[in-house]
């Protein structure tokens, strides 16, 4: 957390402090475009750490720098206490990486994807075979061992990618949008596997633009927008700091929301106008609804719910996470 941490090149120090990733004023530019504009991050051993942000926030650019495949433009980055500019191979030997876009080899079958990848880490053939079998079991893909990758469903490919990233038994697993494009059931299967890995002591770093995923998985997260970190904390801390306990959602006729917002503004701490509804931030949603009706307003539909990270994001950036 201090500057000394960032400057220490040795793994021993990282092990002692439990700091898996340290970034200080980390930046990434593509030509004249700056995708990551100076972020500070500390990931501790054993936690699930999240980057929550919309498309284009710079999450993948950050993940590729952490994966030691994309050179840092400026700032400091230490992974497992090492500098990716000089110790890339040693860092990558101890990482597992699930990139946003699958890089499975379509020309190899499922089990060969694991075996061949294990060989890149210098793991001997017998161990590779053993681990490949274990990991197929873990990923529920044992009966697909000889199948072609092309024939797998999206969820299966994702599970195979995660299985592949575990072949070297990494201490730190990077998952870039692990469940994007998957149906709800496949997402739950994946979340379950990630919980098991966390239980096994693996440190997980996850990016997502799904607030429910961030809330489910992350011990701690940063809200990222336009290359910057807008806030940091546990999901509960973030909600407590940037939102109210409850939200009353009011749906009126099309085009009425802007006008009605003024009439309910005093009912909550804050009111947000969305195209299709009003959000009244309050600690007592039912009370707000009662008062709305007392004032003679007749919403078409109402809902009281707990605040979520979506509300935190809306508060911090004025925009929705998923557009």
């Amino acid at each position, binding site marked *: 957390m201090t500057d000394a941490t960032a400057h220490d090149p040795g793994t021993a120090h990282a092990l002692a402090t439990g700091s898996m990733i340290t970034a200080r004023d980390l930046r990434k530019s593509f030509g004249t475009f700056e995708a990551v504009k100076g972020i500070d991050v500390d990931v501790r051993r054993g936690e699930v750490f999240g980057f929550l942000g919309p498309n284009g926030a710079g999450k993948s650019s950050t993940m*590729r720098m952490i994966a030691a495949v994309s050179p840092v433009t400026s700032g400091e980055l230490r992974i497992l206490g090492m500098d990716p500019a000089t110790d890339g*191979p040693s860092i990558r030997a*101890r990482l597992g990486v699930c990139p946003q876009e699958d*890089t499975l080899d379509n*020309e190899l079958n499922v089990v060969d994807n694991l075996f061949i990848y294990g060989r890149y880490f210098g793991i001997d053939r017998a161990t590779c075979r053993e681990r490949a079998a274990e990991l197929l079991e873990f990923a529920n893909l044992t009966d697909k061992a000889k199948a072609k990758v092309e024939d797998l469903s999206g969820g299966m490919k994702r599970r195979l990618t995660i299985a592949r990233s575990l072949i070297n038994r990494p201490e730190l697993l990077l998952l870039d949008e692990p469940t994007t494009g998957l149906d709800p059931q496949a997402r739950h299967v994946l979340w379950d596997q990630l919980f098991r890995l966390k239980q096994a002591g693996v440190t997980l770093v996850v990016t997502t633009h799904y607030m429910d995923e961030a809330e489910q998985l992350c011990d701690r997260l940063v809200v990222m927008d336009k290359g910057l970190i807008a806030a940091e904390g546990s999901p509960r801390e973030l909600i407590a700091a940037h939102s109210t306990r409850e939200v009353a959602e009011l749906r009126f006729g099309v085009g009425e929301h802007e006008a009605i917002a003024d009439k309910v503004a005093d009912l909550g701490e804050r009111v947000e106008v969305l195209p299709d509804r009003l959000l009244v931030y309050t600690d007592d949603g039912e009370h707000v609804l009662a008062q709305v009706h007392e004032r003679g307003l007749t919403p078409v539909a109402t809902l009281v719910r707990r605040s979520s990270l979506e509300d935190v994001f809306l508060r911090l950036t004025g925009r929705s996470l998923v557009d």
Partner: protein
Amino acid sequence: MATTDTGAHTAYGEGPAYGDSPAYGRLSIAQGMVRQADYWWTAYKRTWRGGVISSFVAPLFYVLAMGVLLGGFIDVDPARLEGATSYLAFIVPGLVATHAMTLAIGETTYPVMGGIKWHKTYYAQLATPLTARDIVNAHLMFVLARVASACAVFLLVLAPFGVFATWWGPVAAFFVVVLVGMAFATVVFGISTRLRDEAAFGLVFRLGVVPMSLFSGAFFPVANLGDVLSKVAQAVPLWHGVNLTRMLCLDTLDGPVALLNVTVLVAITVAGWLWAIQGLERRLSD
């Protein structure tokens, strides 16, 4: 190389966690290649059938068509064939060298772009301890094996036709054509890492490979081109390969010229190798 790490802190599974990666820095060149051997062996098993046709059968048809059939029509004074006793003996070295070039280019155009764009194999490899250098090296070793096996068969099959002046000539020529293959493999690898899409390969073939094959002295003596053009032809990299291969096969070795030929081919290979590594590094580091 085994690490002393027991994997205890990862708490899942037994045994060393990270294979035999060094604690710091990158892998040795040999380590980098050994780790990819199984990948390339699998790739070979998948494609060898097609490879047999293009590597072995096609060039023999060439020899038959151009050397025997076409050569039968050509009645030239052996004095004008750079020391060859027949047209067949003249073009065999040129065909072998050209074949080495063609194979090498075939293995470093679409396959390299595939590794970057279509199959993304290189991205998967780069996420491991392997570096761009290791990836280039292993790919080039595979090309070398392809070129070497195809050219060895080519030379062996032609031996009974009396086109070689000595037994050791074609043995030395074998190493030269492998070097020709590597010179083109490295440079074309470098080009492929810098191309955004495959349409540009058409230009590589039309403006590079075809004219180079024609004006390299493979099919007719460059002296036929006249003074000026024959000097230009000698600037063509393939000419150095063809010329050296022919001098070895026909036992007409000219020391200083041979030294120049070898130097040019080695220089191209080394420069191309570095250029290919730099190209892949940049391309994959977005």
